[in-house]
């Protein structure tokens, strides 16, 4: 049997298992419960929660982008390890608090959280819209990854549109039927698979190309001095850019609705224990970076279309690996992409229903809300699919702008948690201006002042405005501001 046939059988086998686990997990749960669909009844255990959070971070980017960064940029790729390890840490403090507030006022989204505290209908609509656009961008990236992997591992026999349709179609089906619980349990399977595959395949590649890890680095430092340093001669990134990229990722991480809302899905103890074991996930990324470093002085950049193709290129073109390795890497990359896609599709649908629809049309019953959320899963999935397959430059710019704007939720969220002085109008204006500044420097301006990340520039203007405007406006409900601050 040809390598591509074995690879295809393994990947299809993986997809079938993922579908079965997802659908089974949602079985025997109350199908008519909004609470069950949105936050799994608030009762997810440690094991599942850990993989749910980890699966969300281990995305198509980890399998394709991380080796690509290491291959093309060198040391700047270390930012991925740093931010993965640190971004989760504030959750230990804020997660239990958000969870308690959520259970007290029956909240299950970011928009709902800010709406209650700032007593505004404009704010949740803004948050819902930004969240959906950003999620679609995120999903499109995952889907491109899935389709690409299918395509290259079967040596071009599965076309782009079909690979994306099959793998993401499965995600949509299990999320729409089983909600958060289905996403969580399929993430356990997907998480285990990608961790094992990344270590086995990563180290196998390093050993085939350079005999050992230290041999690889010795070769690399000799061939490309400065490649493993930042800002020095031969480096691909300045110190300011490196630092602000880490900061924006660390601050923005928990603002992503699919991560923020997990605070509602579990009790304080589970959240704390999840944070406790989480930095281990950062270490699982190491072999994938090593793959990129291993190729840096071996593969010429002109041979591949973009740096993201380095891992598949190594497997199919450089190394003579058997077909089952194709299949395993394919399955691992699919697992990584799907375990992010499920959580994001789920939360995008929740944010849109709760943030946008519910605030435009205020008299919805829980039953209708739940139905809208299930339909939303298909609508958002469909949109992301069409954008992935057909593209469209203007649209892509809009989505990229939204993607970079998630971090702008931070002042509103931290203001709600720790201050009684911060007011709704201040947060709205800060959010709008911060988003605009980020958008301008990310997509319009050719460069940023001092090489600072566009998101940080947006965040600085955002924070200044929030503080200044709050000082001469009054919170609508002092009682709610006090409640939020005191809980937890």
């Amino acid at each position, binding site marked *: 049997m040809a390598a591509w046939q074995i690879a295809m059988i393994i990947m299809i086998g993986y997809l079938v298992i993922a579908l079965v686990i997802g659908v089974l997990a949602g079985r025997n749960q109350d199908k008519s419960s909004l609470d069950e669909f949105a936050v799994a009844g608030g009762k997810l255990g440690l094991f599942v929660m850990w993989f749910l959070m980890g699966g969300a971070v281990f995305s198509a980017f980890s399998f394709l982008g991380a080796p690509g960064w290491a291959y093309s940029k060198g040391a700047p790729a*270390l930012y991925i390890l740093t931010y993965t390890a*640190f971004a989760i840490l504030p959750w230990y403090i804020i997660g239990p608090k958000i969870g308690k507030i959520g259970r007290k006022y029956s909240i299950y989204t970011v928009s709902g959280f800010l709406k209650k505290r700032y007593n505004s209908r404009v704010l949740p609509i803004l948050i819902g819209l930004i969240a959906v656009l950003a999620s679609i961008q995120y999903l499109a990236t995952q889907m491109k990854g899935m389709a690409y992997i299918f395509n290259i591992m079967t040596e071009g026999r599965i076309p782009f549109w079909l690979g994306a349709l099959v793998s993401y179609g499965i995600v949509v089906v299990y999320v729409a039927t089983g909600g958060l619980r289905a996403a969580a349990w399929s993430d356990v399977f997907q998480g285990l698979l990608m961790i094992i595959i990344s270590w086995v395949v990563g180290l196998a590649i390093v050993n085939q190309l350079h005999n050992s890890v230290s041999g690889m*680095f010795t070769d690399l430092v000799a061939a490309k*001095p400065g*490649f493993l*340093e930042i800002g020095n001669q031969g480096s691909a990134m300045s*110190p300011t850019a490196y630092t602000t990229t880490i900061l924006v990722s660390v601050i923005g991480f928990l603002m992503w609705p699919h991560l923020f809302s997990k605070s509602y899905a579990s*009790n304080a103890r589970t959240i704390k224990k999840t944070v406790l074991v989480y*930095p281990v996930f950062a270490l699982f990324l190491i072999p994938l970076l090593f793959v990129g470093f291993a190729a840096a002085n071996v593969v010429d950049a002109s041979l591949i279309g973009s740096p993201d193709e380095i891992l598949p290129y190594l497997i199919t073109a450089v190394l003579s690996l058997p077909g089952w390795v194709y299949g395993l890497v394919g399955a691992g990359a699919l697992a990584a992409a799907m375990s992010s896609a499920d959580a994001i599709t789920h939360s995008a649908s929740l944010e849109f229903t709760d943030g946008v629809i519910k605030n435009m049309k205020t008299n919805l019953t829980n039953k209708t809300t739940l139905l809208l959320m299930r339909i939303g899963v298909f609508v958002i999935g469909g949109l992301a699919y069409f954008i992935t397959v057909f593209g469209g430059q203007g649209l892509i710019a809009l989505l990229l702008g939204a993607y970079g704007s998630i971090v702008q939720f931070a002042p509103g969220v931290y203001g709600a948690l720790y201050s009684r002085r911060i007011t709704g109008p201040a947060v709205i204006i800060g959010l709008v201006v911060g988003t605009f500044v980020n958008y301008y420097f990310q997509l319009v301006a050719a460069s940023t002042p001092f090489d600072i990340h566009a998101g940080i520039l947006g965040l600085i203007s955002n924070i200044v405005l929030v503080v200044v405007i709050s000082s001469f406006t009054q919170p609508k409900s002092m009682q709610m501001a006090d409640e939020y601050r005191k809980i937890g």
Partner: protein
Amino acid sequence: MSKKKFTTIYCLSLVIPLLLLIFPLFSLGNRSTPFIVGLPFSVFWVIAWIIVTFLIVLVMYSLDPDKDEEEVQ
């Protein structure tokens, strides 16, 4: 230990390793040589501080005054 005090200690003790991994303090680790356990110094520096961070969180958890709190629904 009170909850407030715990939160302060938690934040401070974890900001330190983060600061060591971003500039200006990352300059301390920003070099290819010497190699340690087969890794270039910059790579080793990042991985080592992540492991230290993991250990700090473990210690923090054991000190947490309300790690066993039962929530009143």
